[in-house]
């Protein structure tokens, strides 16, 4: 017989989706924020991003090749995404060796020790960032002067959140349009709220993510800030200024759109994702309001990462055909 018969069970057709394609879409979605950041902070941004990506990929490759002596899967681009996200969480003027240490912790400790892609309980990029934040607090919280001259004045002080914590500014006095456009000091990737939103919309359109997590995180933060503002000053303009400030300041957008939506460490069901998102939003606001750190997004996400398996266990989709009695 000239033909060789191939046999397998149905389905005999596969969608064009692949891990690599999903990761590529995430990278495309990250591009606008990277561009804004490079505009603000200059070539340093590209340098740090390149170092982060290169070291993440290299660490993963070396561990898979020589430690695990197995197949290398750097081709699926997940290490590249981790690298970019790690870089987005760093100041643009950070020393190269700190970036490398961050990459080793992110990939080596947070990802590969648990068995690689799909098995890590915590978001690798965030583990890397939090490690660096605790190990090198000074380097991690001092941000360089922007290269774009028009922005220098706006960047004179600390980050908006740090300033708020130190009572240096009032949330009501901050120029929200500046914050939306990225005219504020901060980590490389977190300053451009608008660009991050654009990336989020792209990912929603490409069906890389669903709306549940970003909306739950940002929504719960806004509600929390609204209640807070009400208790602080009753019915006033702060009722919308404080929520807007918190949504735009710090890592809220980056965290809600890119970090919390990490597949591996977030819950599997829509209901679970909403619970998870609300948890992140509330914890972030608690840390911002009453914690020692000005920003709580990374800690909140890591904490909820730890809860995700529990959510998966107890939050099940509604069974088809069962009428829920109200």
């Amino acid at each position, binding site marked *: 017989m000239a033909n060789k*018969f191939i046999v397998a*069970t149905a389905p005999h057709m596969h*969608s064009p989706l692949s891990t690599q*394609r999903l990761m590529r879409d995430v990278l495309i979605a990250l591009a606008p924020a990277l561009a804004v950041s490079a505009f603000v902070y200059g070539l340093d941004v590209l340098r740090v991003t390149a170092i982060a990506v290169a070291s993440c990929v290299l660490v993963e490759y070396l561990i898979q090749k020589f430690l695990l002596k197995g197949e290398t899967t750097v081709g699926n681009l997940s290490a590249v995404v981790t690298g970019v996200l790690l870089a987005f969480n760093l100041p643009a003027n950070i020393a190269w060796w700190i970036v490398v240490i961050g990459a080793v912790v992110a990939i080596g400790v947070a990802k590969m020790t648990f068995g690689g892609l*799909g098995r890590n309980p915590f978001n690798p990029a965030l583990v890397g960032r939090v490690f660096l934040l605790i190990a090198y607090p000074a380097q991690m919280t001092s941000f360089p002067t922007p290269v774009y001259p028009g922005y220098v004045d706006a960047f004179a002080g600390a980050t908006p959140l740090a300033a708020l914590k130190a009572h240096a500014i009032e949330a009501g006095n901050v120029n929200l349009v500046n914050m939306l456009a990225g005219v504020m000091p901060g980590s490389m990737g977190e300053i451009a709220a608008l660009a991050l939103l654009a990336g989020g919309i792209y990912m929603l359109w490409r069906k890389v993510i669903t709306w549940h997590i970003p909306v739950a995180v940002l929504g719960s933060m806004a509600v929390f800030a609204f209640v807070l503002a009400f208790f602080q000053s009753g019915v006033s303009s702060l009722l919308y200024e404080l929520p807007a400030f918190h949504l735009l300041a710090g890592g809220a957008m980056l965290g809600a759109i890119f970090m919390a939506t990490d*597949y591996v460490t977030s819950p599997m069901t829509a209901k679970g994702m909403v619970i998870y998102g609300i948890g992140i939003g509330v914890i972030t606001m608690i840390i911002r309001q009453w914690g020692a750190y000005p920003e709580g997004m990374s800690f909140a996400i890591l904490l909820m990462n730890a809860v995700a398996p529990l959510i998966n266990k107890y939050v099940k989709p509604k069974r*088809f*055909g069962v009428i829920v009695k109200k």
Partner: protein
Amino acid sequence: MKTFPIGGVHPSDNKKWSCEKSIEVLELPDIVNIPLAQHIGAPATAKVAKGDKVLTGELIAEATGFMSANIHSPISGTVTAVDMQLNGQGLRQMMITIKREGDEWMPEIDRSAEIKRQCNLSSTEIIAKIKQAGIVGMGGATFPTHVKLSIPDGCKAEYLIINGVECEPYLTSDHRTMLERGEELLIGVEILKKALGVEKAIVGIENNKPDAIQSLKKIAKEQGYDVTIEPLKVQYPQGGEKQLIAAITGREVPPPPGLPIHVGAVVCNASTTVAVYEAVQKNKPLIERVVTITGKDMKEPRNLLTRMGTSISKLVEMAGGLPEGDVKVVNGGPMMGRAMVNIDSPVTKGCSGVSVYSGDEAHRVEPSACIKCAKCVEACPMALEPYLISKLAKKQMWDRLEEEHITDCIECGCCQFTCPAGIALLDYVRLGKQTVMGIIRARAAANAPKK
């Protein structure tokens, strides 16, 4: 436009190769093999032996009990064997082999082209005729139609839903049947309405068949048939019984052992409805059906009116033969069809098409690690968590699988289709489902005598 509420995927339907091709009558086969088990339920009992002469349409195997179906000879000739023969999966199955001599039909079968509109039979008479004709669901599930039409006590049918969805990619046999035999279909609907005693009849057709929707609407209006033609948003697996009911009525069939009738619905496939018309009005048993033969590399995809028991290789030949190299020949469509190793196996009542894949298409994608993207959970139309039940089935944790409602699975393949890591989720889910259903049956059997 309506569709079902949860899950679903959008595979490229690839119907373009054959949807424009009119139904052609395949020349009569010289030899046919008729499996005794080509429906859900007990295999039929052979009524003929080697050497017997049979006419076209003659009863050759009788239903074994209620949950079974009659089988009739698709050709006239001599029975040459009643023996184990290879089926498409290379397994041996009891079949009746008949060698053709001419084409002499049973005298009571009306073979004229005239459309017979008037039906004065009672509900029981109609169901008896359908049972006699051995009609089963022709969409692939092959559930005996007379069983479906016999409403259990305490239930009442409200809706008759005709499944013209044909959500399975590649296949166009229902599409062509609806288009070319619209009036017969609608008379079939009237007959079924009468059999069930229902007022409301809805034909659900996916929006990728606008010509069929238009033509049926036109006939219904001109001839005054009381039936709704409901265009549906294209989404797989809309042709699944539970999904179709949910799409059209908004009601969800309760979990197993829940049946469509528990929400007042009876679903019947479009080709089956035409077969019902032929059985009731023309006394013609189910001995032939339209089979689509298609594939990207098939030279001449076709829709062929084929006698049951014809070798599938004959269809392949009609479509220009198999492409060179690696091929996967699937009995059915790409989402739920069964890959074959033996293409000399016969066309059966549930065979709505044969799709052929070659080269890379014939192979699965290489699996990689699960990234927990939850796309399978999102795609599952039965609200299961495929990543979880697949893993549990691999670990043989049957108790947990039962708790996770693995028996709800309709094996539609959405999870595996969508998985970006290319994991063969359904392989283990199917295995788990079979095992758990076995456990449940065994437990029921063990508990039964105590009562």
